[in-house]
């Protein structure tokens, strides 16, 4: 078609963009499908919680305590008549701490305003953070202020009459302790989460010493047992796998979502991206292959993604080993024979793949990495370990490090506990955190077993399913208000340092154990004692203070172990491996992107954070491929009954997820909590019911049956294709080398002239560059922005009416075949156009340009005509249709229009005092964190610098981005990183042909495909 005067040039990536799901397959339901976009009111509201008022009062009273934070060892609450050292009202303070997260720990720096922790940032010194943080770390601050938190301990059900004071709790605990001491501790069972805390370990040893009969168990819904077991088979001792992908040229992930949910996600993402930063056109790039069934964040960043059912993933790993051994002379010893059964063609269309990947791996010995998913059988991990060892990757790209401790935190341990409970061997069950009643394998029926214990003590943050069954409920301290310590995956030890005195006089795990032992030492003393022993000596005080300051003890990271492969054992394990056979549909279980294993179900930020791939909020669904949907005559939103041969069924809506393997249903566990606060109530469906000890990650023999019901799934993005528009501009490394400026020449348009002189920006000229090659679509920027800028939530109904308020969103587009598409991400904050279309149309000049080129939004001048939003080509402006921030508390009519979490006396404490909380009827949008810019300018002035130095001001999104994809700075400062990037040939502005002159520009996406797989 002729396209003068301006056209899109040849799309160098040569990809065909397909239209939205239903449009592609011109189904007769096309119209209905579009009507599905109706944000129609018929969605259930988040129902109000009656305890709220009471909770607020509690919050208010203890809130006052919170206002006088202090990290003094004495742990005294001091009034400001005696101001704590360093505290200057209006000046934030930053303290280092660490957040235990899924088998590792993320080092953090937490911003605190007059004692209130308000914002989480990564700790640049910490190996597992490097200054970044993920969505879960970012939103953890909200849990601290969760109005539904346990605010007291209870003996029996959580109700006013059962309240018990701290003293009563301590008394009860020590009474129990002495009682147990009487019988040498027999009958005491302690269940902890998969913790990595040396002090907790020490305390537990102490318990074992004093109460020899005591048993300690662990449970984590997403255990890493298989990883350790695998390396035990391969190397003779259970080692943890810590990746060093910055050294890898070729990365092969076999069912591992290492960038988002497994291992050290933040660190891995950074390392992966560092291998893809393209300073100049001839730069090198790593290559990622991913083999998986469910489309994960890692998979979406692959240069090649192989979509096969989960049951075939182990087989692929084996086939890969076989190919390496046979075709490339990689010496795997006996393993070669063991995997001989696995022909590359064993799985449909994998043959070509296995060969190409093997070739690539063999060509990059020592600079490649083979990664197996945590949930894969130990045998696979063993073989993968053997391969890495044989390829010489061990110690270079894949480090095998000492496991913090070797005891199981998976099925083995919890089964044992349930065993002894059923056998009546346990009379005192102490549950430290977690929610086993909800998360334990369904066939164990933990709830029933729990009743067997005469005394069950639950220690946790929120009232949950487990708390409801416990005889004693001890309210726990949030990590931001407790003393503790934790080791990262690589062993790096940090002190968990409180930012605020406990809001509700709550207990840490250490306190509980200390109480049980009848001791009186505070957590602080216990932690100090641990490290006194570890790093004792004269200058301990110095080390300790440094550790508190840096957030870690230097040199505590474990050195990579020198490993010796044991091919015989690996071969044996490989032979013993039973590959699941196809049998009806298969079901796979994954952590929920909102609720994780259920512990974040009451966190509004996470619930409204769209799932990275499906953009689903406030829900979970059964993800199925288009083919599977068609086979079963299903559309997104149809409610189905999913039943397993082995028994058990689940009623849940389906969502067609492009990239999902056919005949494979992906379920996320963690949603559908029964006993939960106001936010999580009625959200999602509980998939734990289908998860049994026999099939914790993959299970075959499932079947779908349509119930005829419909369920509204609130997605923040309902149209998934670019319509051939040059929004995300991408190409291959090869083509990029030929034409580095392809992105700039992609759109041909007439010269962008102006009738009048442009404004000159002499001083600062703030700008942002977003590198699409680095962005992995993890959403960390979205939560960071939400926390920094006091952005309200709108609830499920709000999202259904497409009224979500996120200032920066991550657009996700699919391209290519609907069944197996390729995904691209595009973070979209306000583009801060120099010729901003929004400004001209505002009748009251509520949005105008600053002298530094910011597109300022003056909230208190805005009267809310919404004309600016209509005229914004990027649709980044957000309107307060209601008093989202307050009305849902003060005005019951508003309930459901914005979830309650938006405002409560405790929630209030999280607000950033430097950012206005917007009222109803006002437009809002990204401001490049203008409050941070001002802070930096004031500081610069104070230090008599004539201009703010590069890096002195970082926006919330840029600061937390794990891959440093967002770069912010002064475009007038030629030396600044942002100016350098803006000058790169990859740099382009979206819709620049409208002459809006966006200040936010993008670096074109470059992929590094393997030729052999390209011609497919």
């Amino acid at each position, binding site marked *: 078609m002729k396209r003068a005067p301006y056209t899109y040039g040849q799309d160098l990536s040569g990809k065909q963009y397909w239209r939205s799901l239903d449009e592609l397959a011109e189904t007769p339901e096309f119209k209905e499908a579009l009507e599905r976009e109706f*944000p129609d009111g018929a969605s259930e509201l988040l129902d109000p919680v009656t305890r709220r008022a009471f909770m607020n009062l509690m919050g208010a009273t203890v809130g006052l305590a919170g206002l006088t934070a202090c990290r003094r060892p004495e742990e005294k609450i001091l009034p400001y008549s005696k101001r704590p050292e360093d505290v200057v009202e209006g000046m934030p303070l930053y303290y280092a701490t660490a957040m235990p997260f899924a088998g590792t720990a993320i080092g953090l720096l937490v911003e605190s305003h007059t004692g209130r922790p308000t914002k989480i940032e990564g700790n640049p010194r910490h190996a597992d953070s490097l200054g970044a943080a993920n969505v879960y770390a970012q939103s953890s601050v909200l849990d601290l202020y969760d109005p539904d938190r346990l605010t007291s301990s209870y003996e029996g059900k959580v109700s006013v009459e059962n309240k018990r004071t701290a003293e009563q709790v301590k008394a009860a605990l020590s009474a129990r302790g002495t009682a147990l001491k009487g019988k040498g501790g027999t009958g005491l069972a302690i269940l902890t989460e998969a913790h990595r805390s040396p002090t907790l370990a020490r305390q537990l040893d102490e318990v074992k010493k004093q109460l020899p009969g005591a048993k300690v168990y662990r449970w984590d819904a997403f255990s890493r047992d298989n990883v350790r077991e695998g390396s035990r088979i391969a190397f003779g001792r259970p080692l943890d796998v810590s990746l060093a992908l910055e050294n890898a040229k070729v990365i092969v992930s076999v069912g591992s979502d290492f960038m988002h949910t497994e291992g050290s996600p933040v660190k891995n993402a950074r390392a992966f991206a560092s291998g893809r930063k393209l300073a100049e056109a001839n730069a090198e790039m790593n290559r990622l292959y991913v083999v998986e069934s469910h489309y994960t964040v890692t998979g979406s960043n692959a240069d090649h993604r192989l979509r096969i059912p989960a049951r075939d993933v182990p087989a692929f790993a084996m086939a890969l080993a076989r190919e390496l051994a046979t075709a490339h002379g990689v010496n795997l010893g006996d393993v070669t024979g063991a995997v001989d059964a696995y022909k590359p063609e064993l799985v449909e269309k994998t043959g070509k793949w296995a060969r190409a990947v093997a070739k690539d791996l063999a060509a990059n010995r020592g600079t490649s990495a083979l990664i197996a998913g945590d949930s894969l059988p130990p045998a696979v991990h063993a073989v993968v370990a053997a391969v890495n060892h044989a390829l010489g990757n061990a110690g270079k790209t894949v480090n095998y490090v000492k496991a913090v401790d070797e005891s199981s935190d998976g099925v083995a341990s919890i089964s044992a506990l349930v065993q002894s409970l059923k056998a009546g061997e346990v009379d005192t069950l102490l549950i430290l955190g977690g929610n086993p009643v909800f998360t334990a394998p369904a066939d164990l029926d933990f709830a029933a077993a729990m009743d067997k214990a005469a005394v069950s003590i639950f220690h946790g943050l929120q009232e949950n399913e487990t708390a409801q069954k416990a005889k004693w409920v001890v309210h726990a301290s949030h990590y931001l208000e407790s003393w503790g310590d934790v080791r990262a995956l690589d062993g790096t030890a940090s002190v968990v340092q409180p930012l605020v005195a406990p809001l509700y006089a709550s207990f840490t795990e250490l306190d509980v154990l200390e109480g049980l032992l009848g001791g009186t030492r505070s957590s602080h003393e216990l932690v100090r004692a641990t490290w006194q022993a570890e790093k004792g000596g004269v200058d301990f005080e110095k080390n300790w203070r440094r550790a508190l300051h840096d957030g870690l003890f230097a040199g505590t990271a474990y050195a990579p172990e020198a490993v010796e492969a044991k091919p015989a054992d690996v071969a044996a394990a490989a032979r013993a491996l039973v590959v699941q056979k196809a049998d009806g549909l298969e079901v796979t279980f994954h952590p929920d992107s909102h609720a994780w294993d259920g512990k974040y179900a009451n966190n509004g930020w996470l619930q409204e954070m769209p799932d990275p791939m499906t953009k689903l909020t406030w829900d979970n669904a059964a993800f199925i491929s288009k083919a599977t949907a068609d086979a079963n005559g299903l559309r997104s939103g149809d409610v189905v009954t999913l039943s397993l041969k082995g028994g058990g069924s689940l009623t849940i809506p389906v969502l067609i997820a492009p990239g999902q393997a056919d005949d494979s249903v992906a379920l996320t566990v963690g949603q559908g909590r029964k006993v939960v606060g106001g936010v999580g109530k009625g959200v999602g469906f509980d998939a734990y019911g289908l998860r049994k000890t026999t099939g914790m990650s993959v299970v075959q023999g499932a079947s779908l049956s349509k119930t005829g019901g419909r369920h509204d799934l609130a997605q923040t*993005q309902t149209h998934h294709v670019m319509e051939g*528009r040059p929004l995300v501009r991408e190409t291959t490394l090869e083509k990029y080398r030929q034409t580095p400026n392809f992105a700039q020449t992609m759109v041909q348009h007439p010269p962008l002239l102006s009738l009048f002189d442009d404004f000159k920006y002499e001083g600062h000229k703030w700008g942002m560059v977003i590198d699409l090659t680095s962005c992995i679509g993890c959403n960390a920027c979205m939560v960071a922005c939400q926390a920094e800028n006091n952005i309200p939530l709108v609830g499920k109904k709000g999202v259904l009416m497409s*009224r979500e308020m996120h200032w920066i969103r991550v657009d996700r587009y699919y391209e290519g075949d609907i069944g197996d598409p390729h995904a691209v991400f595009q973070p979209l904050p306000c583009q801060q156009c120099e010729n901003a279309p929004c400004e*001209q149309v505002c009748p009251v000049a509520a949005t105008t340009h600053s002298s530094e080129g910011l597109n300022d939004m003056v909230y208190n001048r805005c009267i809310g005509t919404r004309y600016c939003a*209509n005229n914004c080509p990027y649709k980044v402006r957000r309107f307060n249709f209601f008093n989202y921030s307050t009305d849902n508390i003060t005005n019951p009519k508003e309930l459901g229009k914005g979830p309650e979490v938006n405002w409560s006396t405790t929630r209030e404490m999280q607000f950033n005092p430097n950012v206005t909380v917007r*009222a*109803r*009827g006002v437009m809002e949008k990204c401001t490049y964190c203008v409050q941070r810019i001002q802070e930096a300018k004031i500081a610069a002035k104070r230090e008599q610098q004539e201009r703010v130095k590069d890096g002195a001001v970082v926006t919330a999104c840029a600061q937390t981005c794990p891959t440093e994809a967002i770069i912010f700075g002064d475009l007038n400062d030629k030396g600044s990183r942002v100016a350098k990037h803006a000058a790169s040939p990859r740099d382009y502005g979206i819709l620049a042909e*409208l002459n809006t002159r966006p200040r936010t520009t993008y670096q074109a996406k470059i992929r590094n495909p393997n030729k052999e797989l390209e011609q497919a």
Partner: protein
Amino acid sequence: MSTNTTLQDENPAVRAPLVLGGKDFHGVTTAVSEIVERPTPKPWILGFLISLAVLGILGATLADLVGVGIGEWGLNHPVGWAWDITGFVFWIGIGHAGTLISAILFLFRQKWRTSINRAAEAMTIFAVFAALLFPGFHVGRIWLAYWMFPLPNQMNMWPNFRSPLLWDVFAVSTYGTVSILFWYVGLVPDLATLRDRASTKLRQMVYGIFALGWRGSHRHWVNYERAYLMLAGLSTPLVLSVHTIVSFDFAVSVLPGWHTTIFPPYFVAGAIFSGFAMVVTLMVVARAAYGLHDLLTIRHLENMNKIILATGTMVGYAYGMEFFIAWYSGNDYEVYAFTNRAFGPYAWAYWTMISCNVIGPQLFWFKKMRTSIPVMFVISITVNIGMWFERFVIISTSLHRDFLPSSWGYFQPTIIDISMFLGSFGLFFTMFLLFVRYLPMIAIGEVKAVMPAANPHGEHGEDERHTAEAAHAHG
């Protein structure tokens, strides 16, 4: 002077008279005045009560919007305007016919306007009131809406005169004011008539006060006619500017489907189109209700139908041209915007618009159709439905799918959207019914002026004699 209509109609050389039934001056006076003077008719009371009820719905709606927030509407993030601005443009458009009839036809010396201009002007004013509701209440913080006016304040903050929305504020308020002045000037002599016919003291007082003591002095008529002429002259560019500026709200934006230079003429044509349709609807009813067949003749209605046909065809042309330009521009965003309009999720709205606005009026090519009361009544109503959809289509379909597919959405009205629009009719009809009850709905003086008997040189041979005398007088 009484005339045989049928004969007149058959002879195209002679124009059909504007007043039938052999009425003389007094006949005209009574015919119009009696409507106001005779006791309140039952149907009127019924109609008035219904309008009041609907007006009540409007009140409740506005209370809800102010009390809870405009989130009560179905608006969302891609679609920031929908029924609110649609209603605004719809009513403003209707208003235009009034001014057009009273001003432009006056300048063109279209005598047939005289029996409809009064009602049409009234309609204009009430339509403007109805229209002002929407921009007034659609803002997020209505209590600060006055910031749109250039009022000196301690912060030296002034409105942004670059914004088309502010142009609207000035255009519409000026339009409303001038229309009222124009209407009132026209009313004064008739108010004097009612004063002089008044049977009760109260009526005499009230009408008397508003008649300002008019005594038909020709020395006054001289200034009066000049004023009337100049107000007409001012209203004409004004009415054109108003809808032009309303169209700027869209044309000045960057949105595909809004950013179009054809909008000003297209909107004005559409406005006249819908306005005349509304006049026909109202006149057909009033004519039947008050037996004004002699003053509101078929010829009046037929002329209006001709204008409906013409303007309807114009908007039809505009619809076509939009698509052509979109295609010819080669701009993919433009092309998509219009393809989406005709075949996207809002296709139903688009085709409703086409059939009501372009296809329906074509019937008026046939004299039988343009002179058939039932036909014109139905078409006049469908035209207004169609014109409402035109605005909805332009506003919503352009917004719901613009540049970035990631932010595409869909607008669905809530009950509050609907009650707001419905309520605006309550306001309009309440005011209109009060008007027909208490004010002369036909310009008595002007009708008399266009009767043959009004011509001082009317009777045979008068003219020659007059010129002779004039010559003698000056000689």
